[in-house]
């Protein structure tokens, strides 16, 4: 596959989106100590390139499913930031009415269907959603064929599932891969391999072999690459999304990356010693934002002044989002009992 650089506008877009997620996560981390966001919160600092590089190719009709570490996926897919923050505070204006907190996000308008924290839980749901999309499209194609006489069916909406290296160990993953290939679903599996499940390193959980090769053996088209290079993720995802849209079946991307903060919570935890010495520091040198920034500057696609202004603008947006969120209203006790049944 020929690897081409993203167009300048794309690269700037990627940087902007990553910076937005980074600044939002940093602001959440900063304010978490106030003990008003009272829910387990898994930050994606250090891993922004994956969400952004993949979602750059999605329309609002395409759908995303995610996991416990979902802020980045939500924002990259166009999820509403103020409502995310209101959700963290437990307010009725949250994207989930306050019922979900950080680990349960949704923004149906943006095509972000859901994130939930049971590891593996959303994986088959994404496949089921893609299956339904496929059926709807084939119905539509049949319908239009009879009307317009065999017009080529349009490209399908695709569904994306983001998950971690730990999730790949769950049996439901394998069940879903099999079904996805069987039905040739328009589905993208995005494995964010950050080498840890909570504090347990990959080597205590999986033998030495590539995750994506198992997907390949199942019959998926696979890609693997550097999850800290937004341009690389962008390119791989472009091929993968195009394939899935054009009926070439499910696609699997294994992207290597690293989480900077603790697994759950706002702090650093390198002092705990579960990562080998220097590991985190080395990954920080490979910061996805830093790399893209250098590229933007090196290729003279931007300059310091523009980036400083971008940062200021985002900081302002995030401040306003917090301000809005903090004016949220408490869900009522009566409302707590609603919606058990549809």
């Amino acid at each position: 596959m020929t690897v081409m650089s993203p167009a300048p506008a794309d690269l700037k877009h990627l940087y902007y989106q990553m910076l937005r997620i980074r600044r939002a996560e940093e602001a959440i981390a900063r304010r978490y100590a106030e003990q008003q966001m009272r829910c387990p919160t898994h930050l994606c600092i250090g891993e922004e390139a994956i969400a952004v590089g993949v979602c750059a190719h999605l329309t609002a009709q395409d759908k995303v499913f995610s996991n416990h570490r979902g802020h980045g996926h939500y924002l990259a897919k166009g999820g509403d930031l103020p409502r995310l923050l209101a959700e963290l505070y437990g307010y009725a204006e949250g994207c989930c009415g306050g019922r979900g907190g950080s680990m349960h996000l949704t923004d149906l308008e943006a095509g972000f269907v859901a994130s939930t924290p049971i590891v593996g839980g959303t994986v088959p749901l994404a496949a089921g959603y893609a299956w339904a999309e496929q059926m709807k499209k084939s119905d539509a194609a049949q319908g239009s064929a009879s009307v317009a006489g065999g017009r080529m069916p349009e490209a399908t909406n695709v569904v994306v599932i983001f998950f971690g290296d730990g999730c790949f160990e769950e049996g439901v993953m394998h069940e879903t891969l099999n079904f996805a290939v069987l039905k040739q679903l328009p589905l993208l599996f995005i494995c964010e391999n950050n080498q840890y499940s909570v504090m347990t390193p990959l080597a205590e959980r999986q033998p030495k072999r590539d995750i994506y090769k198992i997907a390949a053996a199942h019959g998926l088209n696979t890609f693997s690459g550097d999850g800290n290079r937004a341009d690389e993720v962008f390119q791989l995802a472009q091929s993968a999304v195009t394939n899935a849209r054009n009926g070439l079946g499910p696609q699997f991307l294994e992207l290597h990356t690293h989480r900077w903060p603790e697994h759950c919570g706002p702090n650093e935890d390198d002092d705990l010693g579960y990562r080998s010495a220097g590991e985190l520091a080395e990954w920080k040198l490979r910061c996805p934002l830093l790399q893209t920034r250098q590229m933007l500057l090196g290729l003279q696609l931007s300059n310091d002044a523009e980036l400083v202004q971008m940062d200021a603008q985002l900081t302002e947006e995030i401040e306003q989002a917090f301000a809005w969120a903090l004016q949220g209203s408490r869900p009522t006790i009566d409302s707590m009992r609603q919606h058990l049944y549809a």
Partner: protein
Amino acid sequence: MRDVVMMSYGEAIRAALDDALAKFPEMLLIGEGVPDPKTIFGTTQGLREKYGAERVLDMPLAENGMTGICIGAALAGMRPVLVHQRIDFALLSVDQLVNNAAKWHYMFDGQQQVPLVIRVIIGRGWGQGPQHSQSLQAMFAQVPGLKVVMPTTAGDAYHFMLAAIADNNPVLFIEHRWLHHIQGEVDKHCPMAELSGAALLRQGTEITLAAFSHMSIEALKAATVLASYGIDAEVLDMRCVSPLDVESVAASLAKTGGKLVIADCAPELASTGHQLLSKLVLTHGHHLQQVPRLIAYPNHPVPTSHFVANHYYPGAEQIASAVLDMLDRSELTESVIGALQSDLPKDQPDRSFVGPF
């Protein structure tokens, strides 16, 4: 307009699936064996031919994943009906059923819904044994957000299946294998059923028999013989396990002087009867004027050997004995039991029924 037809329970299920497939273009019927030549004991016969292989289909052996896939399809607007030939296989999918299906509508604040039916069959007889004849209704009935029904009559089978498919919530639809061949009246022109409420199978004045699924058949048998001895029992079919209709039982007890026998097709430890009785006490304490009885299976797995499995299952005889005992009419026990006893092997519902189970 009434339009009553006689059909077996199994045929009623098939008819409901057929009518629902016609009514809901978004309905899917999926499960291991759904389109195979045995068609889930005949209940899916001809449906693939009629509605196409895209909507009526088999699936990989992957109960948890396929449940999740059906939930996902439901979120996207489909109405999947997922079939397991044994309820035991649903144990592999408890994660998706409990963590996702049951909670999704609630935890996403009512923004999304999961119109999903899980159709499962309780096995019994012909050596189904410990892993193929479990009665797990109580396990699922205790999960808020799941509806759990186990209709007993052909009519209820038809209407509950249609209602379950039309429902925008996950519904566990439990069939007892020994109901499939039983004939009953089905009136297709009833309005859409509610998935709640017990059914009055027999009116009576002296004692209330509240029974679940196949035990309702046994309770009816007992009541019929008891009637010939002048004892008038009321039989309520607890066809909804969740929500449980405590009110109807309380109302019946008001009539029968607070005398209650509960008959459940589950081990005592796993009996919804406890929930029923407890709720009666908590909310209608004064209707129970005599210590009630709970007829249930023993608290161990079902042994395969038919020599002992036969004794695992209580039935009409045990129900009748309990009634006579409660009514202080034990002098009748011997002859009532005599009238109830059959020489049918207890691991077949009737002679003509030799499997597949």
